[in-house]
């Protein structure tokens, strides 16, 4: 450590903690303000626990029916989106990795496109597509997951791909095949256990993306957590603040778990 400090490549402990401290404090302020706001008693100066307590009230289910409904919608969307990742993206990535290595670059390119075509652009073209989708699948909110499957593509792809690259998938599946295992057995007993971490990380990050999604839902006039938060924020900003805090915390925990998964992989 001390030898490296002399090389001048790393900051000294003082420099490090000054930078991290200043940036950390500045970045903590809005979150603290949000928390403080959730305890405010109206526009006066006082504090109250009423806004938090109200959530556990007997009447809460009725008062916040719209919001709870929206949370239900977002959870449903998260589940269907993860299902799309598992049923459509994952098998394709494994297949390309094993059978069509030349298509790897093509697949990567496709999966990165949603970064260049942002949601606000995609939604312009999604509007006519959804007028057809509604005719086929009805107007259930879950159909929005078709669009979210595209939104999460870059994140889910990266999570699964880094796992695929770290495990000798080809060797493993050839070994299993030469011992007489069928493709389904290979997938179930050899590949999926080895890809568990990448798949889990992809699922978590997809959930986080879906819970935070606003653009597409809002402009296609569907109700999800974020559009409902904005709605509630106009009449009851305290409850909106509480749910924003809870959602941010939940996303943070999900991502912390992903970090854990990655760390365990490197250690094993």
């Amino acid at each position: 450590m001390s030898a490296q400090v002399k090389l001048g490549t790393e900051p000294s402990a003082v420099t490090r903690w000054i930078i991290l401290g200043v940036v950390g404090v500045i970045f903590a302020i809005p979150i603290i303000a949000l928390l403080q706001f959730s305890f405010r008693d109206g526009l006066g100066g006082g504090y109250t626990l009423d806004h938090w307590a109200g959530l556990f009230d007997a009447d809460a289910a009725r008062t916040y029916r719209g919001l709870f409904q929206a949370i239900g919608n977002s959870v449903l969307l998260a589940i269907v989106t993860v299902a799309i990742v598992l049923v459509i993206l994952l098998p394709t990535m494994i297949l390309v990795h094993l059978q069509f290595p030349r298509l790897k670059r093509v697949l990567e390119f496709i999966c990165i496109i949603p970064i260049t075509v942002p949601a606000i652009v995609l939604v312009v073209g999604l509007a006519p597509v959804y007028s057809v989708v509604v005719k086929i699948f009805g107007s259930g909110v879950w159909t929005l997951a078709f669009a979210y499957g595209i939104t999460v593509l870059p994140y889910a792809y990266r999570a699964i791909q880094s796992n695929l690259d770290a495990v000798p998938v080809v060797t493993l599946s050839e070994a299993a095949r030469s011992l007489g295992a069928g493709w389904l057995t290979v997938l179930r007993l050899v590949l999926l256990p080895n890809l568990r971490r990448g798949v889990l990380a992809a699922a978590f990050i997809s959930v986080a993306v879906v819970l935070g999604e606003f653009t597409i839902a809002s402009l296609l006039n569907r109700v999800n957590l974020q559009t409902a938060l904005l709605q509630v924020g106009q009449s009851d900003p305290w409850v909106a603040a509480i749910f924003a805090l809870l959602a941010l915390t939940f996303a943070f925990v999900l991502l912390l778990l992903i970090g854990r998964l990655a760390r365990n992989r490197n250690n094993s």
Partner: protein
Amino acid sequence: MVKYLGLTPFAAYVILFLAIPTVLAVTTGFFTEDGAFTLDNIAGLFAPNVLATFGASFWVSAVTAVIGAVVGALVCYALLGTKAEGTLRTVIDSLSSVLAQFGGVMLAFAFIATIGNQGLITVFLRGIGIDIFAESYWLYQLPGLLPVYIYFQVPLMIITFMPALQGLKTTWAEANATLGGTPFTYWTRIAIPVLAPSFIGSLLLLFANAFSSYATAAALISQGAQIVPLQIRSALVSETVLGRENMAGSLALGMIVVMVVVMWGYSVLQNRTSRWQR
């Protein structure tokens, strides 16, 4: 042919929900509501108020990208020498991901609670005699986007730039020291030139990120079309902007042209960097 059968579900899905919407988004601008070809909407892109909106988007994206990149790079530098798998880095990584990618509407709330009319900081500053809204109430206007955007740009910089800093090899510093170099020459002659493409690449990514961001702006600014994404909103909601139909399509086209150019630059620079990151 049969062996490609396994690829059809993904191909069909991507065609239906990525390719078709993208093509529709960028081509509807060329047609009237009745389906007749027109260049009217494209010409509409050059109307003074639309150009002004693109200008405002450029300005907001550029300012927040530069500030975000500089502050983010500083944080990355501060993190050099900490264990990549340690608690500090894991927590900062996760926090950065949340703030950079999933905040949207919720960050707008946080800033209303911070520098809104009754916000924590506003009230505090008012207490010591400073009124941040003395000139105008700017939080719900264009300048109000700057602090919120910086709040998600810095974390994005941390996520994208950290791998590049991490890729600096100790051997380079040793070589520098062996040849009589100082820490100063190490940074000016080796590290900064090596990091430059990656830094500029990340800067472009940040620009693209701000340019295409919608949720935060929509939550803060409920009326009007100060930046391009908000102009797309009003075009979609009211169907006629500047008295033109399908204007959303040509705005989407204008936006995607900018995005493709910026992201192309990003990928070129990223390829240059990945050579020595392995």
